[in-house]
């Protein structure tokens, strides 16, 4: 394999016609991973990749054909694969071995996908740069002095560096879309509940969803099709009978003008405007919409998410699994284990969550945030009565320098300003690379985000394909 296949669809053709075996394909990716070791995209490359590829070749030879049979994928370190270490890039779970497969992994194994390894991330998926990984940060393949975004930064970097054909990530407030934007790949945050969370380490249970990072919109669609579906192991999954929005020829796209014009890098804004022009040129209608509640979305998110984090991470107590520290007593053991196991960002969010849920502040923070969540839902749903999709830049800035925002957590949180709304109300959103800008002589990608109503992924795929040039 001299040059890696461009897309999963391309690799599929090569595999099905026998031009390439799954073993050769896997070998090529293992070599590529080795070449780009400097990026630190992977926390572990699995030792049985060749074995998995051989098994795929046997199935291909027997005449089987699935879209993902023999396709090499990377998996974020917070998604369980039975028998493998899954650490969420935390000292707390260093060496922890999963005792079962996540539902998405079970589905991909059934399809015959080849798992290359587990990718680096911000600890427990908390961060926007992968600098919060307990095992060192990942570098952006386009400019190694910059971050790849986060928290699924390892997955995005692996795909962008041709060190995986596609990857799985998880998105609680932008953790798939923001790194996709920074690394110039496609990232989908599916509708909440359309993909099972069973086997995904919980961060914010009302916000979390697993989704694909890929080199094309079609590949993201393929991977999404393989992992979605109702699951008895996750009661919040959407029933398979729920009506999905069918694709159409012409769409109306709303732009919350006053919101996207504030605090956005001028070059990012220019790329965004070019994206709108491309959509208009393809025959779609672009209109201005008013979404006044978006201004409070980030504040709402940074109350609800830490509250859920503090509850979810209470399970790490140094008793049943994970790091254990001896504090002299039962309570002392809890405190010592948690103090030693969690890095600064999970610790900060656990304390924030504890604060906003404490009896004296519950109404002022968590109660208000839950009301605000419903106001935002009402506001956006109202706009979706007149438009099919809402467009914004994915991020206000391009990929920033390693270390640039580590000393100011609030500045880091502002990265999520355009992405959190989709998680707050559970709708799907897609980031596609569209346009570029130049920083310090390096060309960097810009992400264009589209948000659709619940179960409106087809709308996102159609419009996203226009922007990546895959349309028609």
């Amino acid at each position: 394999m001299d040059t890696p296949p461009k897309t999963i669809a391309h690799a599929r053709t090569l595999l099905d016609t026998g031009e390439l075996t799954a073993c050769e394909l896997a070998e090529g990716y293992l070599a590529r991973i080795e070449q780009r070791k400097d990026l630190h995209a992977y926390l572990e490359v699995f030792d049985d990749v060749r074995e998995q590829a051989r098994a795929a070749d046997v199935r291909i030879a027997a005449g089987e054909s699935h879209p993902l049979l023999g396709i090499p994928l990377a998996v974020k370190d917070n998604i369980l694969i039975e028998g493998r270490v899954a650490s969420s890039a935390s000292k707390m779970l260093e060496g922890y071995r999963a005792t079962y497969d996540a539902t998405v992994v079970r589905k991909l194994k059934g399809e015959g996908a080849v798992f290359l390894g587990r990718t680096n991330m911000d600890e427990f998926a908390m961060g926007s740069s992968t600098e919060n990984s307990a095992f060192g940060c990942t570098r952006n393949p386009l400019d190694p002095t910059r971050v790849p975004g986060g928290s699924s930064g390892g997955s995005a970097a692996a795909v962008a560096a041709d060190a995986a054909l596609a990857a799985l990530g998880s998105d609680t407030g932008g953790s798939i879309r923001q790194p996709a934007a920074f690394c110039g790949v496609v990232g989908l945050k599916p509708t909440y509940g359309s993909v099972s969370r069973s086997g995904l380490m919980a961060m914010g249970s009302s916000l979390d969803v697993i989704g694909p990072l890929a080199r094309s919109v079609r590949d993201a669609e393929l991977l999404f099709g393989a992992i979605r579906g109702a699951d008895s192991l996750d009661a919040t999954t959407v029933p398979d009978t729920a009506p999905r929005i069918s694709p159409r020829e012409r769409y109306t796209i709303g732009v919350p003008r006053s919101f996207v014009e504030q605090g956005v890098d001028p070059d990012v804004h220019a790329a965004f405007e070019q994206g709108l022009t491309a959509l208009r040129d393809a025959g779609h209608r672009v209109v201005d919409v008013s979404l006044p509640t978006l201004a409070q979305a980030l504040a709402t998110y940074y109350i609800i998410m830490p509250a859920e984090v503090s509850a979810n991470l209470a399970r790490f107590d140094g008793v049943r699994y994970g790091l254990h520290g001896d504090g002299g007593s039962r309570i002392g053991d809890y405190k010592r284990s948690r103090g030693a196991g969690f890095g600064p960002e999970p610790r900060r969010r656990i304390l924030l969550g504890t604060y906003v849920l404490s009896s004296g502040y519950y109404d002022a923070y968590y109660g208000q945030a839950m009301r605000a969540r419903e106001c935002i839902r009402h506001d956006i749903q109202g706009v979706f009565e007149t438009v099919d999709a809402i467009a914004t830049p994915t991020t206000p800035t391009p990929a920033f320098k390693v270390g640039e925002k580590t000393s100011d957590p609030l500045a880091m949180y502002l990265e999520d300003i355009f992405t959190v709304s989709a998680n707050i109300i559970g709708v799907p959103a897609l980031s596609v690379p569209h346009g570029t800008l130049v920083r310090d002589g390096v060309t960097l990608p810009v992400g264009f985000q589209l948000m659709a109503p619940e179960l409106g992924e087809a709308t996102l795929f159609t419009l996203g394909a226009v922007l990546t040039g895959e349309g028609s």
Partner: protein
Amino acid sequence: MLSKDDVRKLADLALIEVPDDACAGLAKDMDAILGYVRDVATLAGGTSDAPAVPSLRNVMREDAVTGVTGFREDLVGQAPDRDGPYVRVKRIL
């Protein structure tokens, strides 16, 4: 203003050990974040009739054992301290 003492109390509530020299920095960061998120009140407070909970859907299932069994050893094997098929903990009473 959040004080170092407030951070210590929160850490106690959250059962997490925070070194003394980290308390001041945490108080400062958390103050900035709480100051920012206090903004939600301008939205929710303006519409007092706003519902506090979303419309929810109940998920029902048969009251029957559905889980897979047979991985006790895998689970107990992850515990930092064990006694045969049990996870060992410090005295509770």
